[in-house]
Each structure stands twice: as structure tokens, then as C-alpha cells.
């Protein structure tokens, strides 16, 4: 674990006291048709921290992530049971409004997926449907702040009205992040946000995540151990649909309790 800087370790330690619970999954089981993809997962997501989900391919990281804002509802054969709460409220309660939930729990996908609209419209879309702004200048302000927070504004400020699909991969991913931020969610879910990016773009996104943590709660799925180590405060390790272990990132990476975690991490860092 020579990759984890002292600064990061320090950060984790100093932040420990102000940890409050944002989301909690208890006894989450997920089925795709007959097949069970998650088994009795219990995981807490703490406010203003970055939680990384790691684990080998197919272990259920994305599945768990998508439970957190009920994106799984869009898959017909998917059934979720157990309880997931957001600020103590059960998000699978039938009275809950999914639309509102998703506005509060934003999501950035693995593959950048901007709308085939202009950059401006991509960012303004969320505020527009949620009625967060009404005048042109309000929209302009939201778009600018969001793009700035996503570290994209300077690169695109002259081409706000050109299609978002014309950007490079890394730019598109940051555009998606800006789009997610624009509705001021409380939680942002990111599913392997850097897998399509080159190191420079990756660095930018990682920096961004670090900044966003001030105001948002972030859950990130990643295949890169370095990335998990660099950006997260807590790490959860999944294996074959089970949550193997969960804890402060430095602990998981230096001194995991579980043999499988150890193997997984060192399988790379030999």
C-alpha cells in the first residue's frame, strides 16, 4: 500500500468525528428473475464522505449502487427486498416518489451518456424538469456553476450550445457529472466513472470527487485499487453478491480482516 499518501490517511482520521449517516442498506437481497445477485447486504453510507465499492467483476457492486436510487426499478426482472433508507426514510416505501428520490440521489454512469442536445441543455435539463429555475438568468447561473464544479466550464464556455455528444470521452464524463450536480442532489452515485478515461482526465475527475465531498455524499464503484485508495474515505468489498467487509479505506487497504479482501487487493499489488 505504498500508494496511499499520508495526507489521505490523515484526512480519514481527522474527519472521523463529524460522520453522520446518510443512507443505510439493511438486509438487502436483490434478484434478477430467479438468480440472486445480492445476499443480505448491510452497508452504511456516511454523509460528506466518499464510499468506494470494490470487488471482482459481477460481484454486485453496480447492482447495489443502482438500489440506492431505485434505478433497478427500470429492469423488469429485478426484485429488491430488505430496507434501504435515505435520511432514515425507507426509499422502497410505496409512498415514496421515485422521481424525487432520484433528484436527491443523482447518478453518473460508467459510460458517459450525454443527451444528444447542447451542452447547455444537458445541464439545464434537470433544473428544468424539477422547476429549480424559471428565468433565463437563473438557468444560466445553474449551468455555469455546475460546469465549473465539474471542472469543465473553461473548456466549453465558448461552445455551450454545441452538442454534448461532440465532446471527448473525459469531457463527456465530466458533463454527466455537471448534469448530476445541477439538480443539487444530496448523494451522488458513480459507477466506474473513470474506466473510459485517460490518466489526465482521470486525475481531473478524481480531484473533482474530492472537492464535491465537501457538499455531497458520494458512492463510487471502481476497479482501480489506486483510485479507491486515492479518493475514498471508506471502502466496501463485495464478493459473489456478499458484502465481505467494510471500513475506513486505509484499514481495508493495509489491514483487511477478510482473506478475500486481502487476496483481491494484493492480487494486483503484488
Amino acid at each position, binding site marked *: 500500500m505504498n500508494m496511499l499518501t499520508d495526507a489521505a490517511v490523515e484526512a480519514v482520521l481527522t474527519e472521523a468525528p463529524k460522520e453522520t449517516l446518510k443512507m443505510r442498506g439493511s438486509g438487502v437481497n436483490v434478484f434478477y428473475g430467479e438468480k440472486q445477485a445480492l445476499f443480505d447486504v448491510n452497508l452504511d453510507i456516511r454523509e460528506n464522505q466518499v464510499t468506494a465499492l470494490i470487488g471482482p467483476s459481477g460481484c454486485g457492486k453496480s447492482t447495489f449502487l443502482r438500489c440506492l436510487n431505485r434505478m433497478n426499478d427500470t429492469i423488469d426482472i429485478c426484485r429488491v427486498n430488505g430496507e434501504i433508507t435515505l435520511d432514515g426514510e425507507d426509499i422502497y416505501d410505496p409512498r415514496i*416518489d421515485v*422521481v424525487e428520490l432520484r433528484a436527491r440521489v443523482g447518478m453518473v454512469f460508467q459510460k458517459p451518456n450525454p443527451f444528444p442536445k447542447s451542452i447547455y441543455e444537458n445541464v439545464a435539463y434537470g433544473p428544468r*424538469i*424539477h*422547476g429549480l429555475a424559471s428565468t433565463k438568468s437563473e438557468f444560466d447561473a445553474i449551468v455555469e456553476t455546475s460546469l465549473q464544479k465539474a471542472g469543465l466550464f473553461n473548456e466549453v464556455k465558448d461552445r455551450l450550445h454545441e452538442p454534448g455528444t461532440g465532446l471527448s470521452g473525459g469531457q463527456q464524463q465530466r458533463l454527466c457529472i455537471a448534469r448530476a450536480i445541477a439538480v443539487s442532489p444530496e448523494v451522488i452515485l458513480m459507477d466506474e466513472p473513470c474506466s473510459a478515461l485517460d490518466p489526465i482526465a482521470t486525475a481531473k475527475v478524481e480531484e473533482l470527487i474530492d472537492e464535491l465531498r465537501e457538499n455531497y455524499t458520494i458512492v463510487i464503484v471502481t476497479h482501480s485499487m489506486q483510485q479507491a485508495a486515492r479518493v475514498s474515505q471508506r471502502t466496501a468489498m463485495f464478493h459473489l453478491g456478499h458484502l465481505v467487509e467494510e471500513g475506513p479505506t486505509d484499514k481495508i487497504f493495509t489491514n483487511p480482516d477478510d482473506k478475500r479482501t486481502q487476496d483481491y487487493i494484493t492480487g494486483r499489488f503484488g
Partner: protein
Amino acid sequence: MTGYLFLAILALSLIAFYVGRSTAGRFVAAHGAEVHSRPIYHGAFAAVWVGLPALVLVVFWLLFQDGVIDRLLIASLPESMKQGASPSQLSLYLSEIKNVASGRIFTEPSPEISAAAERYQRWQAIAQWAMVVVALSVSALALYMARTRMAPQFRARQNFERALDIVMILSAAVAIIVTLGIIVSLTYEAIQFFRLVPPHEFFFGLNWEPQIPIREDQVAGTGAFGAVPVFTGTLLIAAIALLVAIPVGLFSAIYLVEFADERVRGIIKPVLEILAGVPTVVYGFFAVLTVAPAIRQAGGMMGIAISPNSALAAGGVMGIMIIPFISSLSDDALRAVPQSMRDGSFAMGATKAETVTRVLLPAALPGIVGGILLAASRAIGETMIVVMAAGLTATLTANPLEGVTTVTVQIVTLLIGDTAFDNPKTLSAFALGLVLFVVTLCLNVLALRIVRRYREKYE
């Protein structure tokens, strides 16, 4: 009048929309983020509430108004006129009354009729106004109710979306209703038919001569109802059509997708699509006047006797018509195969032909089968071409040079102009239609199965 009423209802919904929106706008100003739905949804909700019920009411009113007034009119006629009058006579009275009422007087009407005409005019006016009043009050009431339901926490979006759902479900139901309508009407008449003709004769008989006398004194045949040759004829012609269309369509698609450049494809694809839109009557003429004689002449030169109504001519021309179904849909399907499949194959050193036949075609199979299925459906259901170019005589043969008949030809000749549904001749058309429906349904189910089974999924 009715037109204005529709306009008025439309205007009311529009007003309701603005009322709803501005009310919700005030909520937003007062309660901010706690308001559940955006103002526009409150507006849309109010508009739907105000517009839809009133429209439905008016449509139903219009459907029934005339019937009710007619009945009242007849009831109001003096006994002397009603006495012994048949319903058809009464309908003539009604017609006369209405003509008089609208000023089309050409002989001096009797006083009873004139009086009735006046009554008619009066009642119509009353009915019209009643409709206007009722419709508008329904709208107003709905507006009031919608307004009372509006509140910051009111889920206007969900409610509006539910209305949309209902509209969509009703639309989807139309397709189902049409099917039911077809099945019910075909089945009903087909049962009548099977009362007169034993099913085993119909399903297994080899002799089809439905021209039993329409009138007692006409002799055109003995009336034999063995449907086998009709169905083999249909299959023969459809098979010929597919034999023409599948290779031409598929090769065209392959060429357009893999060999032609984008610009050429942009021109050729729509040009080929014209083939599907050419009226079938035109193809009928083409088959009868150009293709059939040419085939016959060619046969003559080779010493082969070819029927003037040969299945080859009808099927061949039908094949031309359905080319675009196969070429366009296969083109789309091939195009949808991801570039990575092509790259994979080319990187192995495969030629274009190998890539197409071994990788792309199997991967695009569902789309291609879908296109072929649609084309086959068209070929089986196509009417005008075969009516003009195929024979009327049902021959049990697989020889494309002979004349055969098809289900659609029989249905048309049995039905056009003849609406007496009480003899086996006309009823047999429905039995044919029903069996055709079932057969194609089975074909479709089979195709769906095959596609599901052999589909090579590339995701």
C-alpha cells in the same frame, strides 16, 4: 354548431390550463420547494379534467342523438301513418321529413309530414342546445373540482400521467379490439358455414368449386368446398414471391450496407422503398399485361405450355412488390450489428463476403427474419395482384407454370358486391379468412420461437 362546441371545450381546457398553472405558480411562490409538481403539470391536469369528459360526452351524445330523435319522430306520427307501415316505410317517412325540414321540397308534402318536419326542426334545436349546456356545465364543474383539488402537495404530475396512461392503454387496446372484431366476425360466419358444410370436407377436401348457384336458376358448378387446393395455391404463390424477394432483397441489403458508399445508399434505399408503395392494381396490370405474356411466350419458344394465369407471373410480380420489406428491414438489421463485430472479423483476415455470411447475417437474423415475415405476411394477404393475375380455378398443383387460386382471390370473388350472408358460397369466404388468420398466426408464433431460439445475441 357542434364545431363551435368543440372549439368552446378546447378554449375551456386552455383556460383551465392557465388557471391551473398560475394557481400552482402561486403555490411555488408561497411554499417553494415543497410544491410537489411543477405548475405546468397542474395546468395539464386541469386541462385534461375540463376537456376530456366533456369531449367524451359530446361524442356519445352525437352518436345517440339522431337515433333518439328518429324514434320520437316516429312515435309522434299519427296512427294512420304508422298503421301497418313496415320499418322500411317508416325510414322513408323519416327521410322525407328530413328532406322537407332542410328545405328540399319537390312535391307538396302532406300536412302530417310538414308538421313532423317542424317538430323535427324544433327537437333538433332543443337537442343541440341541451348538448351545449350539458357539455359546458360538465366542463365548468370539472374546472371547479380540479381547482379544489389543487394544493401544494397535490400530485398533479402523477394524475396527469395516469390520464396519459389511460389514453395509451386505450390505443393499444384498439389493435386488440380490431383483432377481436376480425376473429368474432369471421368466426361467427365461419360457424354458420360449417353448419352447412362439414369441416372435414373443408379441411381435407381436394376439390374447390364454391360457385354453387347464387340464384336457384343459376348453375355454375356443384359447389364443392375442399379448401386444400386454395391453401396450396396461396402457399405456392407466396413461396414464389419469397423466392424472388428474399435473394434480391437480401443481396441488395448486403450490397447497400457493406459495399455501397453512404451517398449511394441514401438514394437507393428510398428508391427501392417506392416499390412497396406502388398501388397493387398497378402490379396487377404489370403481371397480366407484361409478365404473364412474356413468360408464356418464353414457354412457347421452349415448347412448354404455360397457363396464362400462371402462378409464376402472379408470384413473381408479388415478389417485386415485397422486395423493399426485405431489403429495408435487413438493411436496418445488418446496420445495427455493432462495428466491433465487423472489426473482429476483418482483423482475423476475413474478406467482406466471409464477414457478411458468417458473422453479420447470423447476428442480424432476428431483424432479417422479421423482415421476411412481414414480407411473407404481405404476400399471403395481398389481394389485388392475385385477383388480376392469378386464376379463379383451384388446382392442386405445385407446378408454378399452372394457374392456381389463392385465399384472397376467393374471398374477393365470393364477397364483392354480394352481401347475402346465408349461403355456403359467401360464408365459405369467412371460413377461408378465418383459417388464413389462424395459419398466419401459427407462422408468426413459429417465427418468434425460431428467432428466440437461434438468435445470436451480440451484446
